[in-house]
């Protein structure tokens, strides 16, 4: 009995024992794609706090956290979309257009602020749907489709407003409080947008890693024909993600317009590339198949802190792009090196 291995042996837990070369917890942590960005973020925080006495002050931190969620929300949507193998260049324009629609409708007394809010979000659903439909049904690369949409949306915002900002101060609504109302924890000023950002991040993180939809997103980006053959609705998945990305960009734009009390038709210009940079720096694969919400949050903070920090230590703000470019190149080199090392090891 003992000498003869039987089926029962297969069921014994010892069969599940750890393989000899199983990596330790520390090795696993280092092997994660988020590890490089995390180290960079820590180095950045340490460096800036050593070089500037005010970098870690409550005033500066709450300032930093006021703007970060707006870029962050766009980056969350973009993470899901890039994981599915597509990206969206129109987010910056949607960020600008949505608040223009909302405030114009409200200021012209066409409808209440709440109704205008939903009309603006509805418009972003349409924009996302058009993007997705063009990419999946007409098989046009997302680069071209969303480049076109970027111009259409920006042009619409400029045309509606004649290029002038919309006033926003007349609104005194519960809605604005819910979206971006502020409160104090001690001296620390917290905007509601930070809470929304955390909520969105948790929900989307769960969706990406734990749900069937998340599995489909990764499969669509990794090998869409194989996914399709298994019955995964690749096109529908992608269309839904284009819609999600556009809605989050619109919501972020509305948040921003309430916080700064201005809806400028030019706001959000250039954000699309910064958002894509945040996502890719965080470890999401630009070509799809792998995405990480935690990495994106790290990426968002790396870039936002860089913008804030270089000003705090006295480097002219105009030099910002030099640092961002260097970070992107450095992180891509790191990811590619880790990838090659990983593959040569197997």
């Amino acid at each position: 009995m003992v000498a003869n291995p039987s089926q029962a042996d297969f069921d014994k837990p010892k069969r599940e024992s750890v393989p000899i070369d199983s990596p330790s917890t520390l090795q696993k942590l280092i092997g994660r794609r988020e590890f490089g960005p995390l180290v960079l973020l820590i180095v950045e925080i340490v460096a800036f706090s050593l070089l500037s006495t005010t970098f870690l002050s409550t005033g500066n931190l709450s300032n930093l956290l006021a703007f970060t969620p707006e870029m962050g929300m766009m980056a969350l949507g973009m993470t899901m979309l890039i994981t599915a193998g597509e990206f969206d260049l129109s987010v910056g324009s949607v960020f600008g257009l949505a608040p223009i629609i909302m405030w114009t409708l409200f200021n012209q007394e066409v409808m209440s602020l709440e109704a205008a809010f939903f009309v603006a979000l509805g418009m972003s659903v349409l924009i996302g749907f058009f993007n997705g439909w063009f990419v999946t049904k007409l098989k046009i690369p997302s680069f071209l489709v969303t480049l076109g949409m970027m111009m259409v949306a920006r042009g619409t915002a400029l045309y509606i407003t004649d290029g002038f900002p919309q006033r926003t101060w007349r609104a005194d609504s519960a809605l604005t409080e819910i979206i971006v109302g502020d409160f104090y924890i001690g001296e620390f000023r917290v905007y509601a947008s930070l809470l929304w950002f955390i909520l969105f991040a948790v929900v989307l993180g769960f969706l990406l890693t734990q749900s069937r939809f998340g599995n489909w997103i990764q499969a669509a980006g990794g090998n869409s024909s194989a996914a399709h053959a298994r019955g995964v609705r690749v096109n529908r998945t992608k269309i839904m993600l284009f819609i999600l990305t556009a809605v989050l960009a619109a919501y972020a734009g509305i948040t921003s317009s309430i916080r700064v009390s201005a809806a400028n038709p030019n706001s959000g210009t250039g954000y699309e590339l910064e958002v894509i940079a945040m996502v890719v720096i965080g470890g999401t694969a630009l070509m799809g198949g792998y995405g990480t919400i935690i990495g994106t949050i790290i990426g968002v903070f790396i870039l936002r802190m860089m913008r804030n920090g270089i000003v705090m230590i006295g480097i002219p703000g105009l030099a910002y792009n030099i640092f961002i470019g260097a970070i992107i190149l450095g992180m891509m080199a790191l990811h590619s090196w880790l990838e090659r090392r990983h593959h040569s090891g197997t």
Partner: protein
Amino acid sequence: MATELVRMENINKFFGRVQALNNVNFTVYENEIVGLLGDNGAGKSTLIKILSGAVLQSSGKIYIRGQEVDIDNTTDAIKHGIETIYQDSALVTQLSIARNLFLGREPLKGPGFLQWMDQDKMNVEASRLMREVGITKNIPPTTPISALSGGERQAVAIARAMYFDSDLIILDEPTNNLGVEETHGVLRFVRNARDSGHSCIFIAHNIHHVFQVVDRIVVLRRGEVVADDIDPKQYTVQEVEEVITGMRVM
């Protein structure tokens, strides 16, 4: 007599003026491994592509268990229980073994609208399947496909076909680019698949591999079936090679 599983009848395929298949009749019975042989350009991959939905026949009919079926695309084929395993192409290399096995049919848990994947179940089932298909090495089911060897990838694809009860598993050059041990592994997976009640079509350039695993050999030559019931136990490799090259008529 064995029951008929798939029958392809009078299949013709033209690519422009070139006739790739000429009135081909091809049958697979339940619980058998058929070796499909032929020189380059003999039409074996065209025949397989028609069966797996990648190519549409110009004329001819396909029956599954006696029922005529239309196979217009790969999804149709899978729906009818025909699974084709090409090297690599059917797997998402970034995803884990378990996620690939259950892709498109993920088990769910949790209440109503808020459902998530039952990853514990997926992992347990994946481990069991990998053992069943014949992988003896202890590979965690959370390992991404990209970290697996060619033979192990074949194992995952075969395991998936077995688990979702594909009646017919088509293996197109499954032993290409594999080492000796890996090849033996794949041949073992194929036998295991047959022994658990699946039929297989096995296509390989290496005729020795075919001889080691199949129950019956069908030979195509210039788009026509020239032999469809060669018992590998009664013929030598050389004799079959002569049939393939047209030096021997059966």
